């Protein structure tokens, strides 16, 4: 047990599974197959497992995803790490092939693969294509793939272990906002389910639902609100597909107030699906959404930092909501 970054924790899960499965592969691009963390051994997948199993070629994310899928189709457990800059380039491969081949073959095809799709860190200065946080909704609408998104190092490891062991194609969204986070993570392998939301706090006044990098702001705001005497139930979706409707509905049946928080664009953000599912099942509740406006992220820090949803926005909205 040691404090580990999300990246390191995730690589630990991968290393463990690659040691179990002699044929398991890892395709990367500009993100070296290496993770280091203060006080723990450096993980170097390329060195440990060799270039035939751990490979990078050119800038071709379509190949990374398609080759991973092809490897899975012939029985190899395969993972690829797609950098955020190319996060939509393999879209059609995942949407039309990974998501459909098992169903279309009436169950003949099996694809034990994981697509790690990076989502940018939404850092100011990089502008429209390198600070965007939008892949969550695109991928969550696809049938036939499980779409998960960790929010902390512990889940990053446990959900990766589950994703690798899952016989279905899994889109593992990895927001770069998590890179800064570290926490105590067990050294031994463990799993976290791919279909359960996590109740981070419980309360009767208000339900706040978020996911991925947004959870840091949700928990920060929840903290402030609890201190101000508001009983907040903070829920981390963790899995966008399948979505854990039961946990969401139960919570709002109690609180009758639902506030969703997304860094993704407002229109068709995950929060829209959360609200719709709850609204179909709970009567007389009230709803609010916080999300990134329907605009690309600007480069200017002044504009970007104003525009990007943060904990302060949650606190203010929650107070208005209750008042």
């Amino acid at each position, binding site marked *: 047990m040691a404090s580990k970054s999300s990246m390191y924790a995730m690589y630990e899960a991968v290393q463990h599974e690659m040691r179990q499965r002699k044929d398991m*592969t890892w395709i990367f691009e500009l993100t070296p197959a290496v993770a280091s963390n203060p006080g723990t051994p450096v993980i170097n997948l390329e060195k440990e497992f060799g270039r035939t199993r751990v490979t990078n070629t050119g800038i*071709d994310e379509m*190949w990374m995803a398609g080759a991973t899928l092809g490897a899975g189709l012939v029985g*190899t457990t*395969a993972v690829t790490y797609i950098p955020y800059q190319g996060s939509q380039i393999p879209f059609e491969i995942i949407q039309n092939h990974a998501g*459909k081949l*098992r169903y279309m073959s009436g*169950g003949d095809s099996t694809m034990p693969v994981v697509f790690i799709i990076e989502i940018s860190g939404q850092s100011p200065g990089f502008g429209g294509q390198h600070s965007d946080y939008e892949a969550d909704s695109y991928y969550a609408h696809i049938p*036939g793939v499980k779409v998960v998104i960790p929010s902390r190092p512990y889940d990053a490891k446990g959900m990766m272990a589950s994703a690798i062991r899952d016989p279905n194609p899994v889109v593992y969204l990895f927001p770069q906002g998590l890179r800064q986070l570290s926490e105590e993570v067990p050294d031994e392998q463990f799993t976290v389910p791919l279909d359960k939301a996590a109740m981070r706090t419980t309360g009767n006044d208000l339900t706040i639902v978020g996911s991925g990098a947004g959870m840091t702001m949700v928990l920060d705001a929840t903290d402030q609100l609890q201190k101000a005497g508001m009983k907040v139930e903070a829920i981390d979706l963790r899995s966008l597909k399948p979505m854990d409707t039961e946990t969401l509905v139960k919570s709002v049946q109690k609180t009758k107030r639902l506030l969703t928080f997304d860094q993704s664009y407002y229109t068709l953000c995950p929060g829209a699906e959360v609200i719709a599912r709850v609204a179909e099942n709970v009567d007389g509740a009230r709803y609010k959404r916080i999300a990134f406006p329907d605009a690309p992220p600007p480069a200017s820090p002044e504009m970007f930092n104003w525009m990007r949803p943060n904990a302060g926005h949650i606190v203010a909205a929650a107070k208005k909501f209750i008042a």
Partner: protein
Amino acid sequence: MAIVQSSAGGPAHTSLPSQTRRTLLKGFAAAGAAVSIGSKIARAQGEIGFWAQNLPNEKLIDMYSTILRIRWFDRTLADKQLSDRSFRNLIHLYCGQEAVATGVCAALNNKGPFEEIDVIFGTHRPTGHAIAKGVDMKKLAAEYNFKATGLNRGYAGEMHLADKSVGYIGADGIVGPAAVLASGAAFAFRARGSKQVAVVFGGDGTYATAAFHSSMNNAALLKLPFIYVVENNLYHQFAHYSYSCPMKDIATAASMYRVPGWVVDGQDVTQVYNKMKDAVDRARAGEGPTLIEAKTYRYYAHWGAPGAEVGKLGSFGYDPQAITSWRPERELRDWLQRDPVDIARNTLISWGVIDQAKASAIEAAVRQEVKEAFDWEAQQPLCKPEDALKNVFVEGTVAARQFG
């Protein structure tokens, strides 16, 4: 039409029954002219193999039977589409291209545990690939008519067939991506140190897709056991391949990746087999990928049997979809002169493997086999509607949402 003449340049008389080995060899020579570039590259690599001549008789007869199975299966589909509304197939017919799938698969391992057999990735024109790889015709017929007992339980229909048990990873309805998936299978084989080979069939239309560059480039960089079989039947949908590709032989594109690119006469199963065996040997020896362009032709329209007549081979009539069709009737008549069934039969007869009587007996047996497949299909049950919620994931079912 220069392209056509040079690619199908074999003399018409190669299809005459009374043919001797001598004139047949002339036929090869003539066809050789068509494959100049390909075979030059091949010779440069010292690959002069004429392997088919050494195959045991059973194998040669099996190849001939496979060609006939594909032919009569698809002719039956065409006739049913024109005459039998109880059979609901929506189909891209393979007739005319039988020697390609047959010659290619004859050079692969098609039996054994999944970890050992070679795999193929096919296209939206799947009958040939499926039957050549060993898919059961009964289940195939049932799948084409969406039966619960079909090869893929009625989920696939035509364009998404798959049969792991024979290494047929499957058809794919999208033009292109299968090549990338196949190169990934080859990547997995290399990673696990297996001798398996991954083959993708792609039409001439796949050349223009991103998948062509991606699969060839990465297979070349990583020296993968990957074989790209381009079935150049001259058209993608209704457009001649010259609208899609700036060169005469798609095979020449391989040289850009430092990969051998061979042109072969796709109507002659022995020539397809020869080149394919060289490619497979290269792949198993760790020498990397090969691209084989088979010059061939489809006898029916792009899709279905418009303009065809029951009991007659090929679509000569009007195709309502083909508003901008560039396919002249005489082009089809030329190609019918070099029919893969005739060429295969004549080869076996001239080689003394079978005689005319045996040839007819084989064909009669195949037609009976095909008939039985469709008779069986007719008895099979339809799908249970609720099963539509299964097979999305390995486990469980998804929720119905259509009722609100």
